[in-house]
C-alpha cells in the first residue's frame, strides 16, 4: 500500500495547520514565561514601564521568598560585619538584614505532606474498591458508582460549611490529618473511576489461572492484578497528587497556621509598598514546575485522567 491514502492531508495543509498550532502554543506560553522571568527580576524591574523583556537577572525574588527581612538604618548597616553569604549581600543592598526564614518552606512542606498523604490513601482505598467493582457482583454497583461520582458535583464551598463545623467539633481543623482525609474523600471518586477502567482491561483469565494454582483471592489480587495495573495506578496517583497540590478553597477556609498549603500563601507575599511580585513569581515558579514535569510524564494518560475515564483513547 502506498504511504499516502486519499484521506492524508496535503503537505501544504499540514504546514498551515502546524504553523497555526505552534503560534497558539507560543502565545499561550507567554504568561508562563513572563512569570518565570519575573521571578528573576529585581522589584523595580518587575514593575517598570514599559515592561522589561531584557533585564539583569537577580535572585532577589527567591531570597525574598524564603526569608523575612527587617529594614535597618544605613549607619547600623555600616556597623555590621561584612555579609557572610551571597543572599546577605543581596538583602543589604536594599538596606535590610535577614530576620529569619519565611513561612514558604513550611507551607511547601505542608503541600508535600498533605499531597502525598492523601494521594497514597486515595490510591490505596481506590484500588481496593475498583478491584471489587470490576471483578465481583456488587448489588446496586451502578448506583454506587454514580453516587461516588456525584460527590464531585458539589461546589467546594458548599461542602466546606459542614466540614468546617464537623472538624471544629472533632478537633480536626487546621490539622494535616483533617486535610488528608478531606482531599482523599474528594479524590477517591476519581481514583475509583480511573482504576476500575484500568483493572477492567486486565483479562480475568490471569487471576483465574492463579486461583487454580492455589492462590487465594487476596494473593491473586496483589501478585497478579497489582503488577498488571501498575501503570494505571501510577498515573492515577499523579492525577490525585496534582489535584491535592492545586487545591485552594478548602485550604484557605479550613486551615490557617499549621496545616495551610502553598496556594493560599503564595498570593499573600508582601514586600515594600505592596505585593512583592518577584517573590510571588518565584514562589509560583517553584510551585508550578513539578506539575509541569508530571504533565509531560503523564501525557499518554492525560485524557483518561481529566475525563474520569470517560474517554480512553
Amino acid at each position, binding site marked *: 500500500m502506498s504511504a499516502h491514502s*486519499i*484521506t492524508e*492531508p496535503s503537505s501544504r495543509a499540514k504546514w498551515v*495547520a*502546524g504553523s*497555526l*498550532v*505552534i503560534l497558539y502554543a507560543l502565545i*499561550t*506560553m*507567554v*504568561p508562563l514565561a*513572563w*512569570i518565570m522571568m519575573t521571578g528573576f527580576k529585581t522589584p523595580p524591574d518587575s*514593575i517598570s514601564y514599559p*515592561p522589561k523583556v531584557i533585564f539583569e537577572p537577580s535572585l532577589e525574588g527567591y531570597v525574598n521568598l524564603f526569608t523575612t527581612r527587617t529594614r535597618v538604618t544605613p549607619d547600623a548597616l555600616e556597623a555590621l560585619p561584612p555579609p557572610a553569604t551571597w543572599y546577605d549581600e543581596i538583602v543589604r543592598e536594599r538596606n535590610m538584614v535577614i530576620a529569619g526564614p519565611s513561612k514558604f518552606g513550611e507551607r511547601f512542606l505542608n503541600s508535600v505532606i498533605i499531597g502525598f498523604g492523601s494521594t497514597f490513601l486515595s490510591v490505596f*482505598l481506590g484500588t*481496593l*474498591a475498583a*478491584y*471489587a467493582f470490576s471483578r*465481583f457482583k*456488587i448489588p446496586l454497583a451502578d448506583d454506587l458508582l454514580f453516587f*461516588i461520582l456525584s*460527590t464531585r*458535583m*458539589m*461546589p*467546594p*464551598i*458548599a*461542602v466546606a*460549611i*459542614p*466540614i468546617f*463545623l*464537623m472538624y471544629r467539633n472533632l478537633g480536626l481543623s487546621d490539622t494535616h490529618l483533617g486535610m488528608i482525609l*478531606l482531599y*482523599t*474523600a474528594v479524590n477517591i471518586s476519581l481514583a475509583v473511576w480511573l482504576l476500575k477502567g484500568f483493572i477492567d482491561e486486565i483479562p480475568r483469565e490471569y487471576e483465574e489461572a492463579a486461583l487454580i494454582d*492455589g492462590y*487465594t*483471592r487476596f*494473593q491473586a489480587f496483589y501478585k497478579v492484578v497489582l503488577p498488571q495495573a501498575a501503570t494505571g495506578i501510577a498515573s492515577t496517583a499523579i492525577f490525585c497528587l496534582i489535584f491535592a*497540590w*492545586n487545591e*485552594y478553597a478548602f485550604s484557605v*477556609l479550613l486551615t490557617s497556621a499549621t496545616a495551610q498549603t502553598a496556594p*493560599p500563601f503564595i*498570593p499573600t507575599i508582601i514586600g515594600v509598598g505592596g505585593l512583592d511580585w518577584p517573590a*510571588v513569581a518565584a514562589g*509560583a515558579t517553584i510551585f508550578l514546575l513539578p*506539575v*509541569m514535569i*508530571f*504533565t509531560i510524564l503523564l*501525557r499518554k494518560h492525560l485524557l483518561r485522567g*481529566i*475525563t474520569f475515564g470517560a*474517554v480512553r483513547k
Partner: protein
Amino acid sequence: MADTPIAHAAKATPPGMARKIRGLSDRAIAWIFVAPTIFLLLAINIFPLIWTIQLSFTNYKANRIGREIKNVGFRNYERILTDSDIWLNMQATAHFLFWTIFFQVLIGFTLAWLINKKFKGNDLWTTIIVLPMMLSPAVVGNFWKFLYQPQIGLFNYIITWFTGAEPSSFEMLGSVDLAPWSIVIVDTWMWTPFVMLICLAGLRSIPDYIYEAAEIDRASKLRQFFTITIPMVLPFLMLAVLFRGIENFKMFDLVVQLTGGGPGSTTELTSINLKREAFEKWRTGYASAYAIILFVTVFGLASIYVKALNKVKER
C-alpha cells in the same frame, strides 16, 4: 507473606477447600474492599450534605456558639429565591459559563482539528498547549492579576501596542465593563486545552474508511466536514461541555484571586457569594440553604444534559 504458616497451609490444601477454610468468600472480600471507600464518602460527603440540609432550615450562626438555634422552616429558601442580588450573581455566573464554554469550544475544536492534520511534531506542541490546565487555579489567578495590572502589566502593554490605546485608559480588573471579560479570558486560556484534548480523541476515533467512502462518492470536503466530522465529534464535544459546565459552575479559586468578585459585584459568581455569606457574614443557616439550591441546580441541569448526551450517542 509467602513464608507465613498460613501461606504454607494454604499451599498444602486443595484450592476449593482452602477458600472454604479461610472463610473469605468473594462476597466478603468485595465488601471488605468497598467498605472503607463507602465509609469515607459517607463520613465526609453524605453526612455533611445531610447536615447542610438540616442547617438550611435554621438560623444558625457558626461564629456564635451557645446561641439558641431556631427552626425557621423554609424562610431561608424564600429569602434567597426572592433576593435580587442573588439573581445578579446568577447572571454573572451565567455570563461566565456561557462565554467560557463558547470560546473554549470554538478554539478547542479548531486546535484539535488542526492538530489532527498530523503535522510533524504535533505531539510535542499538544503537550505544551496542555500545560496551563494542570496548574493551580489560585496561583494562575494570582499571576494573571499581575499581567492585568494597569500600566505595568504585560497584558495591558500588549493591547496598547496593538491598538494604540492609552496604557492608562483601561483597567481589566478595575472596570465594571471589562472585569467580567477578564475572567473569561483567563479561564479560556487555562481550559481551552481540555476541550481540545477531548475533541482530538473524538476526531481520532473516526475511522479513515468513512472519509475514503465519502471521497469515492465525490462528497466535497465541506460536506464531509458537516456530515461526518461534526456529527461524529459531537458526543465528545458535549462531554467536554458537561465537564466544563460543572467545573465553572463551581468556580471559586481562580476568580477569587483575580478579582475577588469585584469591582462592585460584577464578577461575584455564586461560589464567591456563598463564601461571603458562610465565612464572612457567618450566616450559616442561610448559606446552607444557598448551598443546597446550588447543588440541586447543578445536579438537575447535569442530569437533563446527560440524558440529551445519551440520545446523541445512541444516534
